[in-house]
């Protein structure tokens, strides 16, 4: 695509139109998976070391760990790693790629507006690595260097076996000799950083890119460096395009290979963002449901509280009115009401005092007739017991008399004691009258209180 290889910025509409023209005008399968690379300068790479062993755990903590490594705000950051290797100790080193979420969405939107659904969004460096790795004889080395250069950019990748381990983007604005020196220095530094050693002699550099630039670079690099410069011919293995000698489309070829083979080692920012977006959406949904439930519960509790308050206030008012009603019904003459219970207690107290005074007088009357009747009924006729005196009050009865014997006196005490109205019978005095030879006695009878 012209905009992919030139520095001329294209608007989204122009790009969409160009994609549409290119695809519908060519012999492309419009149902094939669509894999795109983020534009030049919009993907950032960094190497990240950790002792975490699980890839899944690394994915979870990756964003937080590399937050400061990229010029993208945290909320807008989409990161993923494409490869890892064992380094000293238990550590692993990951090649991490990052893009801006908004730019990622813009790219996807552009492709969608052209009438295609994006299957994968990767990086040009990944595409380059996949394309070069397809040449197994060259890419299976311990350390391999790939170089892609066109009019606006140079991509330098260093791999180990089939794994892409480091990516550098360089500006190709210097003279060929100066750029070759820059490249040599960059390769040397990157190699040392990765493998902690100097670049071995006769290391292969797989060169690809725009035809003229590749030719120039090949000549200059051969002179400046002690490397084997090999111009990449990626299409030699593809029979239908075997006549194609140009390596300018190596990135597009890499993307096609990624789409065709579902390369798991290639970065997929769309998938990384989708996972994050799904997690975020799920978390947001859960938080929203939880929040709604919490708010609903709180609202219900508060509503219940106010309902309870209303009910209590109504109950309070009802009881207060009832108290006033009972008071005014009982004491209608009371006009100044301050404390119903206290005033009622006072009134009852006054009335009770009056009642007690009168009741004491009324109850102090002796049931004289009933007592006389009871005593006359009970004292046995045949025993010659005669009553000489009786004194009756409300509380007690004093009875004195004469009996023929002490036994008769005991009988009298027993019989009188059986009268229900009497609480107790006490024999006070008992003696023998020497003149009449009869027993004199007196009883104190306690009358049952009413």
């Amino acid at each position, binding site marked *: 695509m012209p905009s992919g290889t030139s520095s001329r910025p294209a608007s989204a509409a122009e790009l969409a139109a160009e994609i549409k023209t290119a695809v519908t005008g060519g012999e492309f399968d419009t149902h094939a998976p669509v894999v795109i690379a983020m534009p030049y300068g919009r993907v950032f790479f960094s190497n990240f070391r950790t002792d975490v062993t699980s890839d899944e755990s690394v994915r979870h903590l990756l964003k937080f760990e590399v937050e400061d490594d990229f010029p993208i*705000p*945290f*909320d807008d950051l989409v990161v993923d790693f494409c490869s890892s290797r064992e380094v000293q100790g238990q550590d692993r080193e990951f090649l991490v790629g990052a893009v801006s979420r908004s730019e990622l969405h813009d790219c996807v939107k552009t492709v969608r507006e052209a009438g295609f659904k994006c299957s994968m969004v990767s990086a040009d460096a990944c595409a380059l690595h996949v394309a070069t790795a397809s040449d197994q004889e060259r890419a299976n080395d311990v350390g391999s260097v790939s170089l892609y250069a066109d009019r606006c950019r140079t991509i330098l990748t260093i791999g180990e076996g089939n794994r892409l381990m480091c990516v550098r983007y360089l500006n190709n604005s210097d003279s060929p000799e100066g750029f070759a020196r820059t490249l040599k220095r960059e390769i040397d530094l990157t190699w040392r950083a990765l493998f902690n050693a100097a670049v071995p002699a006769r290391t292969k550099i797989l060169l690809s890119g725009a035809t003229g630039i590749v030719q120039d670079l090949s000549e200059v690099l051969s002179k400046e460096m002690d490397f084997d410069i090999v111009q990449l011919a990626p299409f030699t293995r593809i029979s239908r395009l075997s006549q194609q000698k140009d390596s300018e489309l190596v990135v597009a070829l890499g993307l096609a290979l990624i789409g065709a083979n579902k390369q798991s080692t290639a970065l997929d920012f769309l998938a990384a963002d989708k996972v994050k977006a799904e997690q975020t959406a799920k978390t947001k949904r859960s938080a929203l449901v939880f929040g709604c439930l919490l708010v609903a519960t709180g609202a219900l509790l*508060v509503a219940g*509280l*106010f309902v*309870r*308050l209303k009910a*209590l*206030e109504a*109950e*309070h008012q009802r*009881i*207060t009115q*009832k*108290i006033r009603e*009972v*008071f005014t*019904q*009982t*004491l209608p003459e009371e006009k100044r009401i301050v404390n*119903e*219970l206290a005033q*009622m*207690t006072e*009134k*009852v107290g006054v*009335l*009770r005092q*009056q*009642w007690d*005074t*009168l009741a004491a*007088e*009324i109850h*102090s*009357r*002796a049931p*004289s*007739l009933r007592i*006389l009747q009871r005593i006359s009924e009970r004292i046995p006729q045949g025993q010659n017991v005669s009553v*000489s*005196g*009786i*004194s*009756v*009050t*409300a509380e007690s009865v004093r009875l004195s008399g004469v009996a023929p014997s002490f036994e008769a006196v005991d009988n009298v005490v027993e019989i009188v004691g059986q009268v229900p109205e009497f609480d107790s019978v006490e024999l006070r005095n008992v003696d023998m009258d020497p003149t009449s030879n009869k027993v004199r006695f007196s009883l104190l009878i306690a009358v049952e209180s009413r």
Partner: protein
Amino acid sequence: MVLTQREKQVIVGGAAFLVLIIAFQILVRPTLHRVRVLKRVVTEKQETLGELRAKGKEYNALRSQLEQIHLTIEGQRRGRQMLSLIERVQKDCGLMQKVVYMTPTTTAISDMYEKTNVEVKFGAVTLDQIIPFLLKIESSQLLVGVRSLEIKCGVQNPALLDAVIQVVSLSTIEKN
């Protein structure tokens, strides 16, 4: 100042939390306090109502009984009516000649009522004469009653009795 979405969310969340706290302090907490107070007050008022009803019943019962007594007392004229009654009963029972003495005394029992106590002594009477006397006194319509009764055998003739009877009556104090 440009804020990220996360910062905006934190600010909105914090503001919402602050609003909730303020709403709780202004609205919910006083309501909770009021509910607690009302619960206690309603319980106390219910107890008060129960006590008031009981006291009202007691008051009505006492007032009714007192009114009944008062009406009865009002119906009789001070001590004089009681003396007339005793005299009439003595005549009816044939005890007029047997009266040794008859002494009335009056005592105030409250600022409204007074008590009239009449002590009557009969000499040389029989039990058959005393019983009807007591019966008539106790069944009288007036609020009179026998306070005490003392019967002794006569010294000269043990077949005849000496009896001292105290009759008591309540009446209202006449105020000038």
